[in-house]
């Protein structure tokens, strides 16, 4: 019940935010020597009601100070639009993209070809954001001379990212059953004894458990993602059911480093969620009670990651400390082309730390049941006993 509502809700939020931003006027200035290509784009933008041209003496400075939202410049073989990062880059990109995709694209292409510029090799519309707070260096977040799929990128984030985030629920479910199998079921079937008899340290046993569970979790999450993605692509390519979405929204252009980052982040989540699951089931003696305890981590996985879809929530120096959510925000950041920075390192460190702590606690809970009193002494033992029925040894 809750999840579909949440899914639709968050998607709606994204769209709603985009819509409201789209209604805002975007002021822009032209910088540098003009030429025919630039004039053409200028003309197109002027026709759009959301774009408002302003004259400024020092466009670059005004951009930095936020007096103007965007500056267009003629570069060697493409037109560059620099936007102030304070502006929602994603929305602007969407807006421009919409402009170029619609009839204006037609117009633009015709205009270019009439000027002797071939459609293929020309005139992507490059969007570059300017990082004015930091070193003043510019950071290219999207766009290249290569064509419009690049320009689409930011707009595409939400759909693919949504699917990836929703696949985390399946990842959690994929972790739940194996984690019960490696904890409570070991007691129910009385196989924990045989594990304890191996010439392997108990930490290694825990490591083996989490490796097994997270592999299972990652595979089920990824399979779920791939299948949702394919279905979405199929539906969107076939039907005009969702006028706002097209299969273009599912395209993501990521370079190899970003793709690897994405996979690493997903695997990190798999490890973290598996560790939490193992922790949640580690003090259970029976599969039945373990099933009930998995509700808590599942609830967290249900509620926390989709929060990353809130448009204003970004990976920043505060958010990077929130486990799980910071990972999904990192996914979002990678999708948005944010380059590797210290927040990513903090996210990785926080996730590994939380996994480590949950596994350390799980190790204690698990082996405390094998050998009551070994870790906690007698007081805490009677506490632990409340969770688990005492073994009736013949």
């Amino acid at each position: 019940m809750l999840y579909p509502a949440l899914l639709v809700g968050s998607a709606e939020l994204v769209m709603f935010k985009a819509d409201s931003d789209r209604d805002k006027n975007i002021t822009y200035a032209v910088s540098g020597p003009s030429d025919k290509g630039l004039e053409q784009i200028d003309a197109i933008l002027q026709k759009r009601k959301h774009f408002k041209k302003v004259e400024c003496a020092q466009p670059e400075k005004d951009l930095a100070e936020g007096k103007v939202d965007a500056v267009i410049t003629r570069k060697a073989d493409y037109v560059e639009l620099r936007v102030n990062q304070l502006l929602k880059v994603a929305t602007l990109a969407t807006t421009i993209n919409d402009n170029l995709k619609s009839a204006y694209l037609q117009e633009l292409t015709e205009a270019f070809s009439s000027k002797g510029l071939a459609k293929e090799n020309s005139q992507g519309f490059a969007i570059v954001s300017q990082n004015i707070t930091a070193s003043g260096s510019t950071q290219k977040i999207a766009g290249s001379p290569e064509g419009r799929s690049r320009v689409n990128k930011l707009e595409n984030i939400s759909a693919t990212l949504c699917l990836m985030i929703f696949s985390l629920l399946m990842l959690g479910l994929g972790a739940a059953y194996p984690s019960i199998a490696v904890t409570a079921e070991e007691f129910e079937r009385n196989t924990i004894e045989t594990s304890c008899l191996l010439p392997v340290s108990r930490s290694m046993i825990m490591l083996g458990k989490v490796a097994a569970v997270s592999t299972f979790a990652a595979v089920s999450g990824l399979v779920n993602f791939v299948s949702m993605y394919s279905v979405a692509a199929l539906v969107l390519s076939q039907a005009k059911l969702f006028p706002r979405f097209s299969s273009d929204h599912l395209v993501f252009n990521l370079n190899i480093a970003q793709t690897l980052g994405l996979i690493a982040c997903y695997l990190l989540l798999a490890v973290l969620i598996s560790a939490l699951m193992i922790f949640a089931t580690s003090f259970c003696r029976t599969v039945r009670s373990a099933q009930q305890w998995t509700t808590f981590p599942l609830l967290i996985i249900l509620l926390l990651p989709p929060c990353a879809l809130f448009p204003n929530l970004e990976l920043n120096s505060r958010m990077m400390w929130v486990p799980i959510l910071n990972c999904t925000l990192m996914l979002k950041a990678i999708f948005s082309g944010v380059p590797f920075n210290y927040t990513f390192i903090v996210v990785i460190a926080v996730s590994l730390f939380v996994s480590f702590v949950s596994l350390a606690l799980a190790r204690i809970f698990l082996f405390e049941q094998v050998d009551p009193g070994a870790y906690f002494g007698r007081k805490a033992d009677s506490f632990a006993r409340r969770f688990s029925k005492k073994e009736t040894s013949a």
Partner: protein
Amino acid sequence: MKLHVEKLCKRFYEPARGEFFACNEISFEVGQGEIFGLLGPNGAGKTTTLRVISTILKPTSGSAHLGDIDIFQDPDAARRAMGFLSSSTGLYERLTPREILTYFGRLSGVAEPALKEKIESLFLALDFKQFADARCGKLSQGTKQKVSIARAIIHDPKLMIFDEPSTGLDVLATQSMHEFIKQAKGEGKCIVFSTHIMSEAEKLCDRIGIINDGKILAQGTLAELRALTGETYLEEVFMALVRKYELAK
């Protein structure tokens, strides 16, 4: 290799009983090619003692040595040299005997080419080759016990610990279990064995320790115990020792 257990204690806590010693200053020795039996009623502390020796439980105090290995200081080395089997030991139901043996063999450090041969020879020795590739969940109790035995000895341990191994087995399976224990004795292994069945102890054990309430009341060969109590049958020997213990309390 010789097992030497010295003043082993294990304290438990239960809300109803408070703190108590499930095994209390237990000392005994088992030589090579010897079967030592712990004989006692339910709740006497047999399982606890054997679990402490096999490093599943941490001792409250006391020491145990297997040859030069200090079992509690170097549990990994000790585990490599011992096999433990109890009637309650479970198997991974979704795995086949072959998979289970491979898994435990590898983790116990048996080298790969030798492992395959070892597994085949265990199939033949314990006579369950026809079930080698069936899932353990589907096997009969007797076959499961055979798989458990094979699991416990896949790494060729010097010391074998059996905790009431025949519980839940039918006459035939019990018989083959006894055969197996005798055979292991012939191979020169140290064997510790617990039971609450007098005849089983009488039949198998070289030396017997009578255990009750966490304490060993007396130990020795059957002849020595008879001489000690002046009774003939083990049951009576046992009852005499328990009575004496109760009186002393």
